[in-house]
């Protein structure tokens, strides 16, 4: 029998909470001024502070893509994004994808339902936001391209073929809209 010390070991750092900083974000078209601690990720800000829980936490380490949102029009993993660094940015989440109209569906949302491109639904908002980013990037021409460029979004239910079909249909429906 030996002894061992776990967790932090000895630390000399202070236990003070970091000072909050005021930032302004445009979230789904609405300007929000918020006081945010530096250690708050965009993901936690959306989910815990703004009650926009459509953006999902799957791994919290950029490994699964469930937290994907559009930041200034580009898809990013919000779990690895510190909110304070994005002062002035424009964020679109799954809740705002259809131009904030609660009853309308974005072509991707329609296509995901039609093609049954999800089962449990937990990776779905990230898949859809990622697909919106993919379409905006305009780089995917083939099914192979879609598969590769959507590989940052893990679907454990295994809906991948349906996800690819849904994205292809939405791309067509959007007529190559950027």
């Amino acid at each position: 029998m030996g002894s061992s010390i776990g967790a932090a070991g000895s630390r000399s750092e202070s236990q003070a909470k970091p000072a909050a900083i005021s930032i302004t974000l445009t979230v789904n078209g609405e300007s929000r001024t918020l006081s945010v601690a530096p250690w708050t990720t965009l993901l936690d800000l959306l989910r815990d502070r703004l009650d926009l829980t459509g953006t999902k936490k799957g791994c919290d380490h950029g490994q699964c893509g469930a937290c994907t949102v559009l930041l200034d029009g580009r898809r990013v993993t919000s779990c690895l994004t510190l909110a304070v660094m994005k002062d002035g940015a424009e964020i679109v989440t799954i809740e705002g994808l259809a131009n904030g109209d609660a009853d309308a569906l974005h072509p991707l949302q329609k296509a995901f339902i039609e093609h049954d491109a999800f089962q449990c639904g937990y990776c779905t908002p990230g898949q859809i936001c990622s697909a919106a980013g993919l379409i905006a990037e305009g780089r995917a021409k083939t099914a192979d391209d879609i598969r590769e460029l959507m590989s940052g979004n893990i679907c454990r239910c295994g809906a991948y073929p349906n996800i690819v079909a849904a994205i292809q249909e939405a791309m067509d429906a959007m007529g190559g809209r950027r």
Partner: protein
Amino acid sequence: MNNFAYSRAADVADAVRQIAADRNAKFIAGGTNLIDLMKYDVERPVRLIDITRLPLRAVEETRDGGVRVGALVPNSDLAYHPLIEARYPLLASAILAGASAQLRNMASTGGNLLQRTRCLYFYDTATPCNKREPGSGCSAINGINRTNAILGTSEACIATHPSDMCVALAALEATVHVAGPSGERCIDFADFHRLPGDTPDRDTNLESQEIITAIELPAKGFAENHSYLKIRDRLSYAFALVSVAAALEINGGRIRDARLALGGVAHKPWRDREAEALLQGAVPERTVFAKAADRLLRDAKGYAHNAFKIDLARRAIIRTLAQAANATPQIQSVKKIR
């Protein structure tokens, strides 16, 4: 994640001033690796200095025909930049072989160079790791080391550098521009990353008060004959077991210039000038590629689970050189290996 302070740098001089004032501060740009590591409590900076507002986002031609890439250019912007696509397709391809579309949108050029190893033990604070806690020991040497290094290892560390982009930059002989308290300097890419030796906690030769400002690509881009081939455990979104960047200049049926760099095998992108020299002047064919591969791997050393990498690297080198010679570079979204 610890309770760090946050500040923004207004310009490069300010960034250098701020980092010089705080030994335990770190720069943050894309954050894709740093925040990841902070959440695992592996990195514990007392201050993050946000450099994303610095004017380091240009991709521009240099007077001597090269291209200078600002340190803050996102990986995806670089991969899809017309100058890079046209003149340095090897670099574009390597970037697209790495991470995911989301992470490439976030990660910066400078930050890509500063990625830390993905060694399983480095990431787990419950286990000893000389890179994380100098002197605590290397758990990987006698542990799970299937993804670890086969070249340039030491008794202290067998970690690999995880970047794909850097493998291409090594092959292209890029230069790293840095700024520090005593001014600016340039570091050859080959000298930027270090071997572990007995100081595996130091990944690079960047001084603690320096900041990367740009990567400069020389004029020669090997746009005709090149390929980046990445071998991994699934077909996308995984780190390389072995990756190869091959760049050839072929003229009159002979190789006039050759560059060969490997990822996933060492603490830094691995180049071997002697191996490259074997290619120079030769007719591009598999026997010559095999000789170069054997030369490059002559000192390779396998551990309990990663010895397969030696033969895999050999085959991958031969194949990638063939792709480059045939002007049939690997296309990252097509999974059949050409």
